[in-house]
């Protein structure tokens, strides 16, 4: 039923595409987590930070969100890999060759962080101030308030936005192809299509694989949202 080029093994590209898809998920997941960490830090800096950290966080989110991802990816990719390499020379380690996948994760994670910052900031701000004051009144320390009150109370507000960001990062991994640094799904598709000259077939199949990833994520994230919302009163 399938054309030969889509078989597994020597003649087909099925295994190459699936490996690419696995790579895409790995890069997307790692960048997403890095984005969450940066976003958490950025949100706290914006909400509770001093003037300097607030200023830095504002510049970070404004610049990153106003520039096309493709431009940022190229810029950060070149600047990042060269910068680290130059740093290696400076400390006497010699030029460092950065793994393409790691560089991709770093770049995408840095971009994600700016968007996550805004989602998490909004989610924290939506927590009724009384809840945080009550926690303080009980004598909880700052980190304890954060862990016990802020995180669980903000999750229902943050999950829809973060779910959106997860979809975006899956799709943004395709842009990494322009650096040619790593073999994710779009790169595997490009190679397979170029090799067999069956462009339509391979881009179509690749689109179907991406669609499967986003649909499954959508389904799982819907469940997750219902879980963190348990016990909340239903809106009208």
């Amino acid at each position, binding site marked *: 039923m399938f054309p030969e080029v889509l078989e597994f093994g020597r003649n087909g590209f099925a295994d190459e595409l699936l490996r690419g898809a696995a790579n895409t998920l790995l890069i997307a997941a790692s960048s997403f987590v890095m984005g969450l960490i940066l976003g958490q830090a950025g949100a706290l800096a914006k909400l509770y930070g001093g003037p300097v950290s607030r200023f830095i966080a504002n510049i970070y989110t404004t*610049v990153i969100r*106003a*520039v*096309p*991802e*493709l*431009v*940022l990816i*190229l*810029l950060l990719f*070149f*600047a990042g890999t060269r910068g680290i390499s130059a740093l290696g020379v400076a400390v006497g380690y010699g030029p460092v060759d950065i793994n393409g996948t790691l560089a991709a994760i770093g770049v995408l994670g840095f971009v994600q962080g700016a968007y996550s910052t805004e989602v998490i900031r909004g989610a924290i701000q939506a927590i009724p101030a009384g809840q945080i004051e009550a926690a303080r009144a009980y004598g909880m320390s700052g980190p304890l308030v954060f862990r016990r009150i802020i995180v669980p109370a903000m999750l229902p507000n943050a999950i829809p936005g973060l779910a959106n960001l997860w*979809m975006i990062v*899956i*799709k*943004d*991994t*395709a*842009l990494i*192809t*322009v650096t040619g640094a790593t073999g994710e799904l*779009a790169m595997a*598709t*490009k190679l397979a*299509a170029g090799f067999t*000259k069956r*462009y*339509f*077939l391979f*881009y*179509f199949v*690749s*689109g179907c694989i*991406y*669609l499967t990833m*986003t*649909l499954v994520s*959508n389904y799982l994230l819907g469940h997750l949202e219902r879980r963190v919302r348990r016990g909340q009163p239903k809106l009208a």
Partner: protein
Amino acid sequence: MDWSWLPKYLPMLVSGISLTLQLLVFSMALGLMLAIPIGLVQVTGPKWLAWIARGYCTVMRGTPLLIQLYLFYYGVGSILATVPEVRQSMFWPILREGYYYAILAFSLNEAGYAGEIMRGGFLSVPKGELEAARAIGMSPWQVLRRIWLPRAIRNVIPALGGETILTLKSTPLAALVTVVDLFGVADRVRQETYIIYPPLLLVMAIYMILTFIITRIFGMVEGQIPTRR
């Protein structure tokens, strides 16, 4: 930082900005034109049409724009190239240009995103207004043209502003199919002179300015809409 390339590439930069704006305006206009029926049938259309529209939005929003663009440019383009009648036709010079494939892919993609927005917009118009329009004796078409559509568009202007900026940020993908848009200029400078950072930084700054201008324009349009406070 080496800026010696700037005078030589200045004309290309100007035409690059103009190409980027063209891509943005055409994709948004075509995308919105498609988005109105896509949103409308999901609200009032027959079930099967609503399903098709919803499926369309899911597919467009669930796959990377890069893959969509390549599917059209390389996929459809290579199929067209194998048909001799197409190759010899007067349309071939157009069918070879990355520019048109980019506009096609961007507008179809935009229609998916804006279709969802328009669906929300149509739903947000109070039922009473539509009932009032019908009670006055307007035909369904008149209700749509005079009441429903204008009210829906007003409600979604802020969302469309965000969408316009997202579209602006996806236009550099056109450079991957040989269009020398704003980002394409930076790419060209890098290929021809091996200067990487200054052109990318300049282009980045221009994108930021464009984003700022679009935000201001939409802010002004929103300010024009009379609302009761």
